[in-house]
């Protein structure tokens, strides 16, 4: 299939529909509006349903209902709206339902701003809602990767019966790039025999629920169902890109659009004879801990670059486990890191100034 030039938010919508997503519940918020607008235009053409909810809270609870009823369903928002969705995400995780949630991140806290940011890393990976739960978080860096991961996300959600989140930022949503919609490698997906589509008098009632009033039952649900599933995902679903990690002078860690800026900085350093590596987590959860084992004694330090005041850096420190110093460079509030500043930071670490 030929490549087509698309805007990020619309490409996400097109990928979702190609993955069989026929239901979308959303609420307007900048900078993701082109996605619900696209769905409102395109879903009726495939006999699907787009519905603009009265709030993000209602939208995620409509997703909760639709997912329980067996649909491939999606919602999207941006940071302050995503904060409102956390209640529903916790219920969906607890009730073990599949859905795909898109966060086109903007600056915060509070109303913050509308420019690109990565300051929702904690919210995405630490469970913004209540309780012991996780969900897969994909952080694509190009629009091609975005459409690939959106399509994959629906399969992953169905396979593990859990919400899957796509984390982009204002740049991912607003920029245009050529994309191609590829056939996905097929996963073996379980039959949805638990959905609320009516018993038709042929089976016992199905119940979608996250309430376990007996503490032992709740502990068993969390350990035997949720945690057991999370351990399998940590084993099988980690995605990352690595570049020159072994024997690098400095290893950078960055995700999403920031990683593209870091790649430019690395190229500049290489032209000056430095060996600089990159670890780019594609899944923020599960985080690619194991690749950090490849970092050798020759490396002087790690540099985490984020459009935040430093959130992913916590996972980097857990992964390197104190073997190497971890430094941080970040811009926040919608400001974009400058490649020259990153080059300077890399040089300081390589030259032992830090």
């Amino acid at each position: 299939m030929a490549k087509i030039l698309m805007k990020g938010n619309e490409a996400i919508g097109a990928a979702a529909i190609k993955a069989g997503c026929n239901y979308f519940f959303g609420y307007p918020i900048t900078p993701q509006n082109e996605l619900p607008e696209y769905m409102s235009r395109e879903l009726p053409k495939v006999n699907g349903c787009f519905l603009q909810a009265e709030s993000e809270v209602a939208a995620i609870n409509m997703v909760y209902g639709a997912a329980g009823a067996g649909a491939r369903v999606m919602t999207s928002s941006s940071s302050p709206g995503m904060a409102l969705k956390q209640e529903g995400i916790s219920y969906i995780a607890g009730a073990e339902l599949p859905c795909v949630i898109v966060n086109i991140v903007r600056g915060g806290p509070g109303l913050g701003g509308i420019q690109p940011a990565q300051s929702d890393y904690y919210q995405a990976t630490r469970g913004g809602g209540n309780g012991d739960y996780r969900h897969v978080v994909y952080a694509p860096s190009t629009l091609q990767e975005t459409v690939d991961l959106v399509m994959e996300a629906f399969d992953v959600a169905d396979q593990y019966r859990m919400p899957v989140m796509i984390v982009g930022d204002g740049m991912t949503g607003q920029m245009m790039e050529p994309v191609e919609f590829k056939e996905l490698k097929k996963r073996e997906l379980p039959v949805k025999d638990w959905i609320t589509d009516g018993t038709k008098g042929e089976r016992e009632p199905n119940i979608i629920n996250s309430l376990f009033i007996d503490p032992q039952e709740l502990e068993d649900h969390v350990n035997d169902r949720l945690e057991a599933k999370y351990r399998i995902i940590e084993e099988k679903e980690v995605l990352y890109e690595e570049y020159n990690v072994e024997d690098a002078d400095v290893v950078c860690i960055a995700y999403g659009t920031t990683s593209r800026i870091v790649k430019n900085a690395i190229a500049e350093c290489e032209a000056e004879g430095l060996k600089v590596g990159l670890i780019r987590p594609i899944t923020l959860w599960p985080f690619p801990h194991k690749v950090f084992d490849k970092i050798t004694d020759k490396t002087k330090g790690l540099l985490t670059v984020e459009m935040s005041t430093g959130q992913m850096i916590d996972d980097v420190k857990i992964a390197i486990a104190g073997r190497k110093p971890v430094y941080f460079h970040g811009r926040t509030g919608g400001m974009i890191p400058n490649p020259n500043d990153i080059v300077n930071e890399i040089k300081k670490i390589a030259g032992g100034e830090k």
Partner: protein
Amino acid sequence: MAVVFDRTKGLTSKIFHYCPGCTHGVIHRLVAEVLEELDVLGKAVGVAPVGCSVFAYDYFNCDMHEAAHGRAPAVATGIKRVHPDSVVFTYQGDGDLASIGTAEIIHAAHRGEKITTIFVNNAIYGMTGGQMAPTTLIGQKATTAPYGRDAEHCGMPLKVSEMLSTIDGAKFVERVSVHNASNIRKTKKAIKKAFEIQLKGEGFGIVEILSTCPTNWGMTPLEGLKWLEENMLPYYPLGNFRTPGEVE
């Protein structure tokens, strides 16, 4: 020996957890009997609330979905949009529907969602132990209104049926009560009508049912029924507020 009365097929054999004298049990049975009589148990999906009736998912003998507090109409919307031929209902109390879930119920009605809402109004938060609800009467004591509800401090009790009857999408709105046998019969008729309206695809329907909470009202079951009649009926008048045909 002839069987003269039996459990409706609309209820499971699970024993209710409700307090002695609570009218949730009566209302559960009425809803279940209606689902059985309309022969829709096989395509019914119920949405349970948070509150005293949180375990409704264990009692109704059909597919059930337990929602977050107040969100049942949104969850029901998701289910109904995916399966338009199913019969979807929410079962909600006054804390759930009239307080934390006001946005969800108003907009479900406003969109004309083809669902049925059973709204149980007992003028108090039962499960959490008797706190003030939006529907608590003036002067009525609650654990968070120990001196009695004061309108100057926290407003007048919310009249949900009157409010929803101003919304075009709400095609059926009726307030009923279960404080005596004749009203229980009227309640069942209203519930049946609300489900029939859904089956005809006419729009949103809600039945507000005045109910007792002897435990948190600090009364015997009989005192509770009398208190409802003497205090709730004057403020919450029974009757139909909207029926299809009268709407346009």
